[in-house]
């Protein structure tokens, strides 16, 4: 186990290095400057602004300075939000995305597993079809349709829930965005679980257990669940990262101050510091969660050894 973790850490270093380098130069290559706007500034003003942010330095020097900076944990100033550093913005936004993502993740996993198991056990019955149809609606309807629809029904018409805003994470503000975010992943988890469960339920040792007369509940929970979950777990790693970072549409529609908005606005505004730091964050999260997934694998399936 420790060997695995150590190896992963070692592999992470060149991965991150390549990630940072490629992102840095790609961002700089994109046309457009962080400081352009409808009103063009005089050359003297532009020169002052660029000097302040060291954008006049040769590219390799900017790159080296940036590497030095992030090794100290300082992600630098935001080129767009001039009153804040990137560290400050991230520390405000990350908890929001994590909270939102965690709840959505838990909801998606719980619902997805239940749907998948029920559908598998009642394979090809009308229960199977209804459950899978509902799950599929969640993935087929794009989030930019789902979210406004939820707002239209629950906020504008029924007035049960607010139409947006974070409100310091109040429960009523969380319900709609968490639901919208979770539904897309529920379907995928349900489908993977269903398929995997069907396969496991048809395997030799389960048939043995059934012929021995064990109750279905015991078979499912004690014998079938663990192996059936393996494919789901390998999906969950990237899914969790995706939920936290990819919720841009949900965050925009509901006005939630998470890192999804920072990421896209950062790219559109050419906020180099912001985008690079978020890229690093996503890279670290992805590597970390893939490692966790591999460890979980080993825990669940004793056949897997590292």
């Amino acid at each position, binding site marked *: 186990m420790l060997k695995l973790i150590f190896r992963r850490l070692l592999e992470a270093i060149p991965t991150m290095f390549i990630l940072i380098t490629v992102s840095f130069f790609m961002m700089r290559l994109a046309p457009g400057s962080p400081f352009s706007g409808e009103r063009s*500034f005089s050359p003297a*003003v532009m020169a002052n602004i660029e000097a*302040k942010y060291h954008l006049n330095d040769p590219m390799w020097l900017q790159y080296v300075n940036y590497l030095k900076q992030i090794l100290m944990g300082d992600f630098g100033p935001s080129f767009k939000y001039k009153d804040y550093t990137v560290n400050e913005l991230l520390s405000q936004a990350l908890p929001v995305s994590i909270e939102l993502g965690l709840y959505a993740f838990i909801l998606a996993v719980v619902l997805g597993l239940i749907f998948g198991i029920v559908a598998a056990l009642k394979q090809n019955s009308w229960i199977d079809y209804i459950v899978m149809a509902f799950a599929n609606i969640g993935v087929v309807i794009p989030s930019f349709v789902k979210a406004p629809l939820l707002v239209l029904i629950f906020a504008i018409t029924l007035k049960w829930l607010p139409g947006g*805003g974070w409100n310091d994470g109040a429960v009523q503000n969380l319900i709609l965005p968490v639901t919208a975010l979770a539904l897309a992943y529920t379907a995928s988890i349900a489908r993977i679980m269903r398929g995997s469960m069907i396969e496991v339920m048809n395997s030799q040792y389960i048939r043995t257990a059934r012929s021995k007369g064990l109750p279905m509940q015991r078979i499912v929970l004690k014998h079938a669940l663990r192996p059936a979950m393996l494919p789901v777990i390998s999906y969950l790693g990237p899914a969790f990262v995706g939920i936290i970072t990819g919720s841009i549409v949900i965050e925009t529609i509901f006005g939630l101050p998470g890192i999804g908005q920072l990421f896209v606005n950062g790219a559109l505004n050419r906020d180099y510091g912001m985008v690079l730091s978020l890229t690093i964050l996503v890279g670290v999260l992805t590597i970390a969660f893939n490692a966790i997934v591999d460890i979980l694998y080993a825990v669940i399936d004793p056949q897997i050894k590292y």
Partner: protein
Amino acid sequence: MRKLKPKLSTVRLPLMLALATSVAGLMVGCNDKEGVNNSSDADSKAETALAEDQSITINNTAEPESIDPHKVSAVPEGNIIRQLFIGLVDTDREGKTVPGMAESWESKDNKVWTFKLRDAKWSNGDPVTAEDFVYSWRRLVDPNTASPYASYLVDAKVSGAEAVMAGEANPETLGIKALDNKTLQITLTEPVPYFPDMLIHTSTKPVPQKVIEQFGDKWTDAANIVVNGPYTLSEWRVNDKIVLKRNPSYFDNAHTTIDTVTILPISSPTTDVARYQAGEVDVSAEVPPEQFESIKASMGKELRVAPRLCTYYYKYNTVRPPFNDVRVRRALALALDRDVIATKVMGQGQQPAYQLTPPSTNGMTNFTPEWQAWSKEQRIKEANSLLQQAGYSASHPLKFQLLYNTSDNHKKIAVAFSSLIKEALGADKVQVELVNKEWKTYLDTRRTGDYDIARSSWCGDYNEPSSFLNTLKTDNTNNHGKYSSPEFDRLLNQTLVEGVDAKQRANLYQQAEAQLDADMPNLNMYHYVGVRLVKPYVIGFPDNDPLDVWHMKDVAIAKH
């Protein structure tokens, strides 16, 4: 293995659900029909019963870059800063310049201006002094501040501004001086009669020196900030909300009714209206054009439409073919049916534009081109003739690219433009390629001059024609099309000559627009309107100011 027996196809169920929800959605929008409310509030705050909770939520369309007056350049930032900092002058509900920190001002020659400050305090108890303005304006032009609007003082002709901005002189050489605590003297290089009107701008507002020297870039934190305006910053959560609370030290605090202002950064007009309808937003910033008619029908009384000091136009690149030929530029301008664009494509009350400066601008005598009165056939005939003279025909068609930044509206207008032009001049004679670029990429392309026609717009910084016409002076940084006319420059320079009165100036502006019509560096399309939704219990929200300079201190919430 059980046989497959599908009871309900997995395709039909989702489809039915989708239909059901969309039908439900359509039924929600229909309410009573009301007309559009265009009048400003007649009720005064004193006459209506006021609500216990004087809080208001307004949408500001974007997250501000900063609330430091010297670090910003756009409207959303200006809207917030205006509630926190008051400059030498202010504006009333109609957009007229009124005293701010300065009680009065005078100038014998329009070059040396003396401002007398009133007794006012910063929110930390310090008095607002002339020195504060001296410090602030020096900070604005100081290259170390890297302010995007440093050149505003150059435009205002403040002496020494240009040299300081370029780093060639010390900020102390700027033409601003404190004669005593309450008297400020500003020296200009040329007589600018409308100089006080220019001082409504964000960049000229005062900032608290002590606080900035103590906290540096963190001086705008809610815990540190010190203001002289009706509100102070209470909370700022990026991409979530900004909360302002009443500042009791404001000199006119007795007349402020609203206690708490929550400012939201919702950029999508659809989401804006959705949250307005859900009761979370009291004043929206805009209305999606495609929903305009249905909103007018269902919420007409809450809909406000008012002219804005902005013009939408297509900017020609005048230094490369095909638009380096004035005949081609004029041909397209004559051939385009602007009324279709303004009334059919936009349709919210926009006015077709025949000059750059919006007709309602202060101090403007409008210019009417001769061809505005011509019939459509006459204009098209003339346009065709111009094209032919320039050498274009069916065998040698006019080909060009139309550049616009990504947006549904710009696309609609570009497509309409393209088909209207082809219909008028003949699809065999004109070929338009529509090029759509993301905002920053579009700005970059425009800056490098790599375009034929670019969609563009301009809003005035102050309510005077020079704020528009200056953009076409030779070498003006916003003159991307590189238009250069010595006669046009001469006419504009003439407006700042000693002894020229308001009437003569208005005349000169008219002649300048006439020159623009002859040279056609821009294809003017329409003048903007501002469209927003305002809840019926919001009293006093202004909609007569074409610059849309709103103050929450003028607003109140009625009992509801």
